[in-house]
């Protein structure tokens, strides 16, 4: 009970700190709600994290690998070098992801995918699980997230294989 309260507080603090308005939080209600835990409430973390699976299910790493390649889905290769040698031309905007599982815990990777701006406001990396608070979104994508909750879990599971 007390534990739950601490997590929720951390979540609210995170929301306020990142300038989300209450209206955005309400509008986002169509997506799975998640709890962000920060380093103060869980000292084993290096960056804020989402500890629980968004879907309650385990991700499928093989599907995650497909999602990161797909240009209409993750399109992660646009910016990251990854150990996916059958695909030519990996981008170099972000860090190489080889070995990323030894740098981050699962929950940290989940938050990085959901919305990396919790960690770095200025990042160019898109928030893959956010559906509101954007400016002038094309109508095809209004109210939608880039990835579904399960696709996020699948990508997390794939990233966890990159030891």
């Amino acid at each position: 009970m007390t534990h739950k309260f601490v997590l929720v507080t951390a979540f609210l603090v995170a929301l306020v700190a990142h300038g989300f308005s209450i209206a955005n939080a309400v509008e986002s209600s169509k997506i799975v709600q998640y709890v962000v835990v920060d380093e103060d409430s869980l000292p084993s973390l290096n960056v804020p994290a989402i500890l629980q699976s968004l879907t309650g299910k385990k991700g499928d790493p093989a599907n995650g690998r497909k999602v990161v390649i797909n240009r209409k889905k993750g399109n992660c290769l646009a910016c990251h070098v990854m150990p996916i040698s059958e695909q030519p031309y990996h981008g170099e905007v972000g860090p190489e992801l080889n070995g990323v599982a030894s740098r981050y815990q699962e929950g940290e990777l989940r938050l990085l995918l959901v919305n990396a701006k919790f960690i770095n406001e200025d990042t160019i990396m898109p928030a893959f699980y956010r559906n509101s608070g954007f400016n002038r979104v094309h109508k095809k994508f209004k109210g939608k997230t880039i990835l579904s909750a399960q696709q996020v879990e699948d990508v997390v599971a794939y990233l966890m294989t990159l030891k």
Partner: protein
Amino acid sequence: MACKFIVFSIGLALALGIVHETGHAGEWGKYQVEDRRSGYTYRTKETRAMQDDDFQNPGMALVDEGEALWSMVDGKAGKSCASCHQDASVTMRGVGAVYPKFDIGLGKLKNIEQQINTCRTGQMQATPWKWEKGQLLAMTVYVRHQSRGMPMNVKVDGSAAPFFEKGKAFYNERRGQLDMSCGSCHEAYPGTRIRADMLSQGQGHSFPTYRLKWQKVGSLHRRFRGCNKQVRSKPYKYGSDEYVNLELYAGWRARGLPIETPALRN
């Protein structure tokens, strides 16, 4: 002796290699002014060679088309562009370097495409040409080409200042589902590969440009629409105030760089 010579050449080659890797001021000649490098310098050797050779650059066909249109009489007034402006190589030289420009009558900026259509509807009493269609593209290329090699020199102070500020704000405003600004790519990461493409500084001095991807010449506003759409944002209309203001800012980002119209990009 021969052996020593070989060692010396390898040393020299290595030294040159290092210079090439890191780059130094002036490496790109006229295509670099201070820290501003033309999009030309971010393209491959092959693409640059194609731009450098007028016979290989397919954009040059529009210079010829534009030249033919220049003296074509059209509209109720029975005039051509040449009736008022005579020899384009004299009267249009320098025009491309200073547009878009504040227009007192309009109370806002006007770009070359819009000036061409103002001449058509006003002086010639002809119908305006449509954006992104052959004639307007060809005439814009032809006019801009008369300033090829001249340094970009748009005016951003005085009456132009508020429009410049709007263009700059647009460049730095995040938009779309991917939530990126123009600067997210073109200020933060020029020289960096985004998938197979290498990001440039996102400047406006080379337009209209022949793009291999389009297999066609396109306007700067077409490029803006493409860059807006790739971050999943709703693009603005060709010739919208937003894009004309942005054009001024993109032109200023290229200040001092030589006009390349029609440039060649991938």
